[in-house]
């Protein structure tokens, strides 16, 4: 049995990890591509930004439920996502993904394309160039995307409630716990829980500000 805070941190942490792994890969594939398939992929990745979370959660419930082929297959290999904390991780990963993709893609596209071209004439494979040139020069964008993703995942409510439900100690994350406390008229708990989330959010905001000014400082120096 986990407290809502620990559960929230675990769900948001794992969701951020997944969003970064898949988000960086997607950003790498989409960088400087403007073909029709790339545009479609871009739209799909960004859908969670505009879709109401409850709608997204409902789709996930339908897609991953035991009655869908995907849900049936997942069940046969022993993965249960509906009304489990793992389901909450899936929901949070999907809502966080576009934030990582957007921020990483912008950072990758800001890298001087001549660097990549020269690296190719120097015999390096595209993968090696991505790992040794592109990623090291874009890591601040990636980090910013990761922090945004974590904040978004931590606050996830609608989609999480739909797919993971509200099971205290198992799927009740902090935002859902706050809702529960208010419903039960337990304002003391609601205050404490809201303060906790606020503190985490402020800490994130401060580190992002710090990151932003460090970035600006580097640009100033590069001007030479």
């Amino acid at each position, binding site marked *: 049995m986990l407290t809502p805070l620990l559960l929230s941190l675990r769900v948001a942490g794992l969701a951020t990890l997944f969003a970064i792994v898949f988000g960086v890969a997607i950003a790498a594939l989409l960088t400087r591509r403007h073909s029709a398939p790339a545009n479609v992929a871009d739209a799909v990745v960004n859908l969670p930004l505009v879709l109401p979370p409850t709608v997204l959660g409902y789709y996930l419930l339908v897609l991953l439920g035991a009655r869908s082929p995907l849900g049936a297959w997942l069940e046969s290999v022993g993965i249960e996502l509906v009304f489990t904390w793992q389901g909450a991780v899936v929901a949070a990963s999907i809502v966080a993904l576009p934030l990582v993709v957007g921020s990483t893609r912008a950072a990758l596209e800001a890298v*001087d394309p001549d*660097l990549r071209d020269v690296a190719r*004439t120097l*015999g390096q494979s595209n993968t090696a160039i991505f790992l040794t040139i592109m990623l090291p020069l874009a890591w601040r964008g990636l980090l910013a995307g990761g922090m945004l993703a974590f904040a978004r995942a931590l606050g996830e409510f609608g989609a999480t409630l739909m797919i993971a439900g509200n099971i205290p100690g198992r799927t009740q994350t902090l935002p859902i716990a706050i809702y529960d406390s208010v419903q039960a008229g337990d304002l003391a708990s609601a205050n404490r829980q809201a303060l906790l989330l606020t503190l985490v959010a402020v800490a994130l905001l401060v580190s992002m500000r710090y990151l932003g000014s460090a970035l600006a400082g580097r640009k100033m120096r590069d001007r030479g």
Partner: protein
Amino acid sequence: MTAAEFRASFSLHFPDFDLAPKFELGPEMAVLFGASGAGKSLTLRALAGLEKPDRGTIHLNGHALFDSEEEIDLPPQDRRIGYVPQHYALFPHQSVAKNIAFGLHDLPRASRAARVSELLTRMRLEPFADRRPGELSGGQQQRTALARALARRPDLLLMDEPFAAVEEDLRAHLREELLRIQKEFAIPVLLVTHSRAEAYAMAERLVVIREGQVVQTGSRDDVFRRPRTPGVARLMGMTNILQVTVADGSAPEVLTDWGNLKLTIGTPDSYATGSSLAVGIRPEEIRIAAAESQIQPANQLTARLVKDEPQGADHRLQFEINNQLLEVRVSHPEFMSLNLAGGQERTLTVQPSAIHVIPDPD
């Protein structure tokens, strides 16, 4: 001429621009010269394999790098071409030594280190081996980019406007250094510039590109003194282009009419009487007579000074004659001793040998 090391002839179509260069290079310092937007950088990128031509061939030392018929299109990784883009594109997060070692990933560690230290010495970069590119001067950055490109022992080196990011005082020195490096490595080096002075200072072979087409290639002096078209003539600074009619076309002194005036042209070729010719005269080949007594046996033209543009060391003067403007260039001391003033009529002299017949009037 020795067998060409490098041959390119390809076309690349864009909605608003057609690139179709064709030229050959030996192991020499070659300059790809043209105005902004003529397609110079794009040509380099296509040679390096960074842009794919629609059709044509690119051969280096007998191997096809690109051949649209044979469906050969080697990736940049396999072309053995060193490429230095305009602002060098040094990897900002890596030290000078790491930048140079970047292309040597397929060498064993020991020989990689040896190659890097050899290049650091050769390019006088040892003191800066651990510095980041942002901490280097323009000249040091250029040498680092060169060392990085040469580290893989390429068979051809391409450089896009290599002196653009360097202070003017340093350029002459860096040009000499680059010429020395070309001789040491004995590979064709193709350098892009839009500066006529730089083209003249560097080129053994000059490749002139205009609106995507190579309009003339040849030795530096051949292109500067004997441009094939009026377009090349203007690019080379042969700004005075006159239309004349042949009165007596037998070499070595062809007599022509330029409006009501007579011009004698020194040329090894004969021309049919009555045919019309385009001729070019470089502005520094026109002399202004100081006094009647000094006039040499040469073409004499009386013209009125209408404009004086001082340009530091010299003056660019415009004289009106025959309803046309002639550009004349004189040094500042000469300008002072001639007591020139606007509106004055003066006698201009041009040696017959300084008048060039442009073979392909376009």
